[in-house]
């Protein structure tokens, strides 16, 4: 029994060892690499840069950056505070509604706990929500509901569903099957099984994702104003249109501070629910 294995060993001993290549055919491996390099060079050359325009723009950019050194919170404070309040309300309302709708859809979109028809419907909803970019949805909803925060609120709720349901479903699919099985073996009903066997396993991730989505929704609310869907974005847009870079700087600083605050808060919360 040891005879043949020793001779097999003899033939390979002394050979160097290399990790097997991901693409086995040598010509294909090098072909793809060289092709990618050629594409990269061509792609970079195809981008036209007007260096004269850049030179002029640098000056404008410098003024913009300089404005951060002396942000003006005072002149337009009523506009800023009203816009900020609207953004915060939009953010919180859309996060709460979006998360509440995401949870059942996330359960439905997890293949290991849902029957196939439910799974397909829920995955369909997730796919639609993710395929439609926020700005496009916002333009549509502004057309339907008119200018203002209602369109922004609905847009962000809709976007939250695609984001949260998908990631929640993926976390459920990756859960420890045996823990859930143990609950099922006790004769639990479906909802009890979810509550005892599934929920404890995915709760930290759900809370972490919800905090992250709150953060995203706040930042998005600053963009949605550009298409008339309410919030601080409208104020920011007006400030840019009037070349009031100092007011714009003030708004951006407030956004940065709030996002940092949310980040800090989410760190604390996630550490506690682990």
């Amino acid at each position, binding site marked *: 029994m040891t005879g043949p294995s020793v001779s097999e060993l003899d033939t390979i001993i002394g050979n160097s060892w290399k990790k097997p290549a991901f693409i086995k055919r040598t010509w294909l491996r090098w072909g793809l690499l060289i092709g990618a390099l050629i594409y990269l060079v061509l792609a970079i050359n195809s981008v036209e840069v007007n260096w004269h325009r850049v030179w002029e723009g640098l000056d404008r950019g410098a003024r913009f950056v300089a404005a951060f050194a002396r942000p003006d919170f005072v002149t337009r404070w009523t506009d800023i505070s009203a816009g900020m309040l609207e953004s915060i309300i939009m953010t919180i309302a859309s996060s709460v509604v979006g998360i509440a709708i995401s949870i059942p859809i996330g359960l439905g979109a997890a293949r290991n706990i849902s029957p196939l028809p439910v799974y397909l419907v829920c995955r369909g909803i997730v796919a639609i929500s993710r395929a439609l970019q926020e700005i496009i949805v916002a333009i549509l909803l502004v057309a339907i509901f008119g200018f203002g925060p209602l369109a922004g609120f609905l847009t962000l709720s809709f976007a939250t569903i695609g984001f949260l349901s998908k990631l929640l479903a993926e976390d459920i699919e990756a859960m420890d099957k*045996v*823990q859930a*099985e*143990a*609950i*099922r*073996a*006790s*004769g*639990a*009903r479906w*909802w*009890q*099984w979810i*509550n*005892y*066997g599934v929920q*404890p*396993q995915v*709760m*930290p991730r759900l809370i972490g994702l919800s905090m992250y989505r709150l953060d995203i929704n706040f930042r998005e609310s600053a963009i949605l104003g550009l298409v008339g869907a309410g919030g601080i974005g409208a104020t920011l847009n007006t400030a840019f249109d009037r070349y009031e870079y100092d007011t714009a700087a003030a708004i951006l600083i407030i956004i940065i501070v709030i996002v940092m605050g949310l980040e800090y808060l989410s760190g604390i919360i996630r550490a506690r629910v682990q």
Partner: protein
Amino acid sequence: MLRLEGLDKTYATGDRALKAVDLEVSKGQVLALIGPSGAGKSTLIRCVNRLVEPTGGKAYLDDVELTTLSSAALRRERRRMGMIFQEYALVERLTVMENVLSGRLGYVGFWRSFLRRFPQSDVDEAYRLLDRVGLLHMADKRADELSGGQRQRVGICRALIQNPALLLVDEPTASLDPKTSREIMRLIVEMCRERGLAAIINIHDVALAQMFVERVVGLELGALVFDGTPDELTPDVLTRIYGEEDWEATIEKVDEDDNEASQ
């Protein structure tokens, strides 16, 4: 009390895990199911409470035929079959008490369980069981703070609080040290005796099985190849179940263990 008639399981992959298994377990009988990895031991006990759906044959718990039950009726019958798992299968982020009380889920309504407002009798019984296994002081600890042996004790409490007639036990001592393994096996067997429970214990440690049970069943490639008392496990029988190996040491070790245990 449990009767399997020609129980068959073929997985979607085409693997035939159980080949027409006939088995009868009487009330209060503790049975060890031995066999090599992949022999179908786990599949067999999961086909009884239908965590795995059998593809043929019948299983009777007393007079109830299990394989054709509707989901509501199946839930009622699952309450009578407590299950103890390999690697404990506690819900790690729930407390010890929640894990034990989850054994009552088949008996309480959704809102009661959701609000963790279990009937006082259930709470008292949970405390009694935890006290019995020496973990009363751990009741409000999270399950993932416990050691392996402690977790399996909680798993035993969770199965017993169902007030079952039958225990389905899947490799209860895998990943436990030898001393803890014996303690856990002893606890399971004692509890079965106290409460008159029947049990099927999947176990790959032959010596441990011989030490604690009155009946041993050998499974190989999904078919029953041995059914007898621990004393009847000769090297020939072990070769039939597991394949060629020097079995004398395994069996001798058992004798020593027995002496040690009786001292």
